[in-house]
């Protein structure tokens, strides 16, 4: 669903940030609504793959329509926001701004979850047919879910664009989706504290690894690198071809943060699913849901 952020940022240089913000949210939720309409009857993995397909279509469409987005070159010189005459510019100011936005969104979603709408969503998630039988208008609430999910995505997209100062359809690439997916799954699906914990770990640890202090510390591990390289050399001597050597120890942190991160994320997704499918900090409901794992799955019911 993170892919929906891309249509949420059609920022024309020159417009005020505070004008674009609601506009972006509005457009994003409109697009979410439009995409939600045709996929309403779909469930489960078909829904997942259609969402993926839509994401690719939109991305390819935006890249190929150079007139709209200048293709993969993207749009640059996006203005930064003013707040009551105070310009949000420095990194620290951005930090407080984004945290404030996250807190507001977090508050809104938690209120939403406990509202009538949230209860309807939960009922639909547990069992759509039963929910419908209990009088929940599933069409309305599912569309509402698409729209509000996309609205939050649009908000994120607009803030992201203003922060980076540059967007292109290519920038909302697979890697952002992988980050988001890993955060949600590893933190705990449907759990707000889980998502916060997940992003602190999955985004924070790589950043720490990039610090100068980390590489200074890692520089002490030269002996470890020499030892491992000796081992690799021994393996290399008996196998055809060459498998290369480890890079200098002080670059390990940056290396992991950069390239190796996604290899680790991929492995973590599998490990979490196998060992702790509800995530690090599960929502209580999800924990119960996955706790049924040990009971045998009910026999598939044949469609009439």
């Amino acid at each position, binding site marked *: 669903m993170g892919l929906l952020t891309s249509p949420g940022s059609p920022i024309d240089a020159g417009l005020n940030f505070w004008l674009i913000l609601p506009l972006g949210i509005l457009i994003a939720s409109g697009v979410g609504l439009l995409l939600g309409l*045709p*996929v309403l*009857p*779909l*469930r*489960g*993995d*078909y829904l*997942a*793959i*259609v969402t*993926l*397909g*839509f994401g*690719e*279509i939109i991305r*390819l*469409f935006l*890249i*190929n329509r150079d007139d709209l987005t200048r293709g993969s070159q993207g749009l640059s010189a996006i203005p930064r926001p003013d707040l009551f005459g105070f310009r949000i510019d420095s990194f620290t100011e951005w930090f407080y701004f984004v945290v404030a936005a996250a807190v507001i969104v977090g508050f809104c979603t938690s209120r939403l979850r406990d509202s009538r709408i949230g209860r309807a969503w939960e009922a639909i998630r547990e069992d759509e047919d039963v929910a419908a039988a209990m009088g929940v208008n599933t069409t309305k609430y599912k569309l509402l879910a698409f729209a509000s999910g996309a609205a939050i995505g649009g908000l994120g997209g607009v803030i992201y664009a203003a922060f980076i100062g540059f967007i292109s359809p290519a920038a909302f690439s*697979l890697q952002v989706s*992988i980050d988001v*997916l890993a955060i949600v*799954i590893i933190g705990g699906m449907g759990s707000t504290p889980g998502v916060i914990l997940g992003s602190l770990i999955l985004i924070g640890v790589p950043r720490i690894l990039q610090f100068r202090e980390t590489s200074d510390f890692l520089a002490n591990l030269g002996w470890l690198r020499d030892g491992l390289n000796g081992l690799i050399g021994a393996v290399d001597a008996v196998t*055809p*071809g060459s498998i290369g050597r480890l890079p200098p120890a002080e670059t390990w942190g940056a290396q992991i943060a950069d*390239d*190796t991160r*996604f*290899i680790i*994320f*991929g*492995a*973590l*997704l*599998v490990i979490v*699913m*196998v060992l702790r*499918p509800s995530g690090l900090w599960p929502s209580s409901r999800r924990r119960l*849901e*996955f706790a049924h*794992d040990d009971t*045998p*799955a009910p*026999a*598939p019911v*044949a*469609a009439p």
Partner: protein
Amino acid sequence: MPVALTLSVSFWSDQFVNGLTTGSLYALIALGYTMVYGVLKMINFAHGEVFMLGSFAGYGALVAMGGNELSGPVIALAILGAVIVAMSASVSASVVIERLAYRPLRGAPRLAPLISAIGVSIFLQYLVLEQTSARAKFYPDIFPRGSIGAGPFEITYIQLFLIASSVAMMALLYAVIQRTRLGRAIRAVAENPTNASLMGVDVNRTIVFVFILGAAMAGVAGVLYGLFFQTIRGSMGFIPGIKAFTAAVLGGIGSIPGAMAGGYVLGLAETVGRELLNELPGVNLGNQWRDVIAFTLLVTILIFRPTGIFAQRSTTRA
């Protein structure tokens, strides 16, 4: 309503042959998706990466056997060797993936194996990207050039080889599924795992064989892809993977002949179909739009006809 086509006959026959070529690859890969879906009701997201691993293994084998230095009849042997190496690599990878990432999740909610599969896919893709420093590798340019044909119909040797060997592999697979004991076990498990196990079928073993057969097809597709397109890279599995899944859905997921037919329909839709659209006034879709066509087809089919375009009987799926 007959529409006068502005382009020559040879142009259209070229597009047709191109469609058959990519369609063959989609069909081979789609078989893996459709068979796994048939028995496990799960989208094996890592299948595109199994195809990628096969392609890289075949590349390694060809280079080790002499690469561009190869000439004469040895080339045929080298390609056969590369295919065998690629199949072994894909099959081993697939068996390990099944054991570590999918089997522990048997009986879990359906979302769990799907996410696990996405994890494997990300893992393998970035592992290979890092090992190759995200640079492309180039298959040795050893396949004889030239083409044969009659009149406006021309087909290059490599295209002929690709299409013929794909069809041969698919015929072989079809025979295995229809005529052998193993094939009968696979069909039984696809129909109903519980009943199959009551009849004495070892369900876990059968599922492993399904992964083996699908991965073998993907391995062959990997080498054929490399020989035809020459450029391979760690991220090469994603797009063909999604498209092969599209092909499987087109033909009705779970159906083996459907996956083969779906592959060719998709291949032709991307080439001939795109050019036909270009014949309409005001339409000019370049080559980069073929992915859009494929994904639009996928979304349309899933929404309007989730049992596939050839579906006769309704399959049991939610």
